[in-house]
């Protein structure tokens, strides 16, 4: 029982305890907060980085668009200059029959002279209304004469009513022999005087001008495409990402993966021109909202610190004092003495608990004291009653008187018997002493046995062998008489034969050995074992024979303060020998 209680105490820090529960809750909270912090930071950062990249791309594309538009405007102005050139006007105004190779060449040289000051114009082609034409650099082109003689390619230009219309590859009537693309500015030519249309001008511009532009602006992540999907300039790797829908919208952004990396693909149609700009950019760290992340991180640290502080607080102010109080109370219980506990506690609630416990201990102690006092009084009273009952003097005097009467009547044996009885009671009562010399104890036995012999006739002999040096040794009173009584009633009488009781004593190893031996029926090993090992609460199970013996053994044990004070030897049908070692 004791051990299990110990176990309980040491296991008190189980998983059900407040402190470990708290530990789990706080660890859980910290975990949840850290995870949500990471997720939200990631989401915010990613969005911010994308937005940043998108904004950057937009601004790059706009800048580039503006540059390209202004470049194209430059060429538009140039085309107007050509339209007003004298030699060109002569070519346009002349009657069809007057046109000769000289006139055409004059016009061509005059145009080439204008173009000399500018880079990037690949060729200029001018058609009269009757489709007679002048062209610079004419031999590097292939011409589609069938298409040329239809009106379809002119429609765009005519609807421009003299304004410059930008298209690609001379509206397909003239393509470069090496297949390289060109950007075409087309214009319907109207006569200044008559205000009648006199022809069409096409100016083909090489995309190389965009290369220069990109180089100038240091853009290497840009690709310029025609709205029909032809690559014009810049990083040709990106041309494959072109989609037709890019030419129909203003700005678009989408994520693509290049070599496993997330990139932003931005596209923008240049307003009024059949050109699309593609830009591929990596998401940059520049986009991370560092300040915000730092603030979040700071809040997170504050939260964790707070959680740990709460845990420590509860531990220090609740769990630990409770454990301390508990172990203090437990000490009380184990020691069996009920002291007040005094454990320094950090707060009022626990102090109330401690005070309550202490006042309970006070109350319990008070009750115990009262109970003990009562018990003592009761014992005193009982002793007094007992002494009243005995009244030894009355007994002795009566025995003496009857003895004298017997002697007077000549009954000497009656006088002898009364004398023995008187002697027995004198020693038996012994003025209430609890411990007497061994010699007196032996006298009690002798008197007792001689009276028993009177009662039951000569059924036994008694033999005494008391060593001289043991006679004055003090022993508890009435340790021999019960043993001898046992010898008669449970040893010798059941056997039905005359028996012998021998009482001997000696000093050996500084111990007093007292041996009572009878030649009765003996005791079984089981019975001996039972008597020796029976505990107080088991004693009631013993039969009357063993109970008397057990009671005497217990008294000697109590007197000497030792457990191992008795030996019992026996042989069934032969003898029983009980030895006390005091």
């Amino acid at each position: 029982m004791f051990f299990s209680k110990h176990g309980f105490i040491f296991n008190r820090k189980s998983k059900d305890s407040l402190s470990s529960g708290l530990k789990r809750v706080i660890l859980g909270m910290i975990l949840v907060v850290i995870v949500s912090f990471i997720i939200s930071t990631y989401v915010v950062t990613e969005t911010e980085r994308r937005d940043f990249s998108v904004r950057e791309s937009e601004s790059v594309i706009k800048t580039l668009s503006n540059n390209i538009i202004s470049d194209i405007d430059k060429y538009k102005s140039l085309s107007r200059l050509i339209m007003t050139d004298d030699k060109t006007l002569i070519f346009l105004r002349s009657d069809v029959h007057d046109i000769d190779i000289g006139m055409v060449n004059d016009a061509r040289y005059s145009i080439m002279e204008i173009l000399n000051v500018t880079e990037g114009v690949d060729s200029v082609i001018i058609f009269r209304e009757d489709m007679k034409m002048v062209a610079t650099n004419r031999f590097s082109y292939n011409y589609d004469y069938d298409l040329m003689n239809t009106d379809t390619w002119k429609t765009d230009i005519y609807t421009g009513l003299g304004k410059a219309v930008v298209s690609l590859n001379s509206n397909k009537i003239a393509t470069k022999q090496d297949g390289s693309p060109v950007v075409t500015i087309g214009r319907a030519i109207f006569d200044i005087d008559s205000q009648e249309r006199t022809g069409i001008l096409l100016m083909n511009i090489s995309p190389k001008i965009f290369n220069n532009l990109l180089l100038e602006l240091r853009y290497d992540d840009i690709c310029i495409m025609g709205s029909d999907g032809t690559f014009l300039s810049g990083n040709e790797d990106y041309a494959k990402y072109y989609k037709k829908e890019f030419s129909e919208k203003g700005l678009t952004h989408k994520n693509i993966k290049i070599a496993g990396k997330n990139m932003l693909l931005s596209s923008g149609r240049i307003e009024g021109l059949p050109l699309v700009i593609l830009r591929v950019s990596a998401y940059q760290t520049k986009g991370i909202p560092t300040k915000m992340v730092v603030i979040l991180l700071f809040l997170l640290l504050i939260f964790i610190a707070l959680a740990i502080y709460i845990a420590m607080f509860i531990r220090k102010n609740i769990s630990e004092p409770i454990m301390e109080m508990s172990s203090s109370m437990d000490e009380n219980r184990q020691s069996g003495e009920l002291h007040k506990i005094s454990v320094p506690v950090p707060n009022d609630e626990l102090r109330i608990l401690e005070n309550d416990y202490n006042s309970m201990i006070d109350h319990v102690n008070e009750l115990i004291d009262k109970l003990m006092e009562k018990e003592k009084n009761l014992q005193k009273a009982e002793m007094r009653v007992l002494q009243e009952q005995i009244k030894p003097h009355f007994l002795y005097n009566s025995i003496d008187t009857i003895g004298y009467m017997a002697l007077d009547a000549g009954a000497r044996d009656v006088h002898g018997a009364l004398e023995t009885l008187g002697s027995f009671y004198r020693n038996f009562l012994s003025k209430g002493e609890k411990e007497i010399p061994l010699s007196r104890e032996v006298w009690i036995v002798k008197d007792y046995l001689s009276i028993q012999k009177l009662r039951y006739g000569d059924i036994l002999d008694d033999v005494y062998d008391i060593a001289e040096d043991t006679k004055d040794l003090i022993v508890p009173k009435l340790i021999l008489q019960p043993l001898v009584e046992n010898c008669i009633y449970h040893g010798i009488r059941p056997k039905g034969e005359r028996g012998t009781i021998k009482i001997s004593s000696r000093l050996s190893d500084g111990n007093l050995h007292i041996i009572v031996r009878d030649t009765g029926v003996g005791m079984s090993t089981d019975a001996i074992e039972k008597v020796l090992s029976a505990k107080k609460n088991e004693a009631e199970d013993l039969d009357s024979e063993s109970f008397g013996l057990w009671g005497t053994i217990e008294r000697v044990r109590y007197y000497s303060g030792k457990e191992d004070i008795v030996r019992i030897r026996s042989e069934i049908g032969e003898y029983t020998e009980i030895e006390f070692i005091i």
Partner: protein
Amino acid sequence: MDEKYRVMVIDDEESARKLMKAAIDWDSLGMEVVGEAASGIEAINTIDDIKPDIAFVDISMPFMDGIEFTKLATERYPNLIIIIMTAIDQFEYARKCVSLPVFEYMLKPLVRSEVTDVLIKAKEKLADIKSSWGDDDGKSIPEESNSTEMIKKYVRDNFSDSKLNLAFVAQQFGFSSSYLSRKFKADTGKNFVEYLTEIRMKKAVKYAEKGYKMYQTAAEVGIPDPNYFGRCFKKYTGKNYSDM
């Protein structure tokens, strides 16, 4: 009433029995002490011969105590008046037999006037009832020629039962004790008690030859009181058990 009432004293102390016999004026009560026994065992074995009307029984006796004897006796001898004697320190013990139909409980040491009063009351009761030992009934029971043989066999098989006696066997076979006693004597030429003792003693002699201790043999043959057994043995063999 010309016949005196018969009294039996059952006590393990000889002096107590003698005192009882000597101290009471039996004659003037119209009573007579006809037998005594030193234990319940001895009483069971001799009661059928003694045929008492009143029995004084001491509670504390070895081998078969007064309570056990009283239980048997009230079953077998319903008209027997039993007066229990007990010392004051055994009073708790005596309370166990309160449920038994005994006539009176008396505390030891006995006081003559009290005993006399109880005996006068007992006498009044005895006047109203028939004696247990009546000689009349049994005549109507049909004669069974082999019943004696059956009884002999029963006794041979059960002699080691210490509670066996005439009244018990009679009850078993549906006879009255007196009838069985007469019939047994007539058929065998022997008293029932003599017959039972003879069987037991023959067995005892065999055990004695084997070297059994007296108290062991006594228990084996159904007389677990070695003192009474010793007397029976001496009577039967003419020798002490220890001399065998």
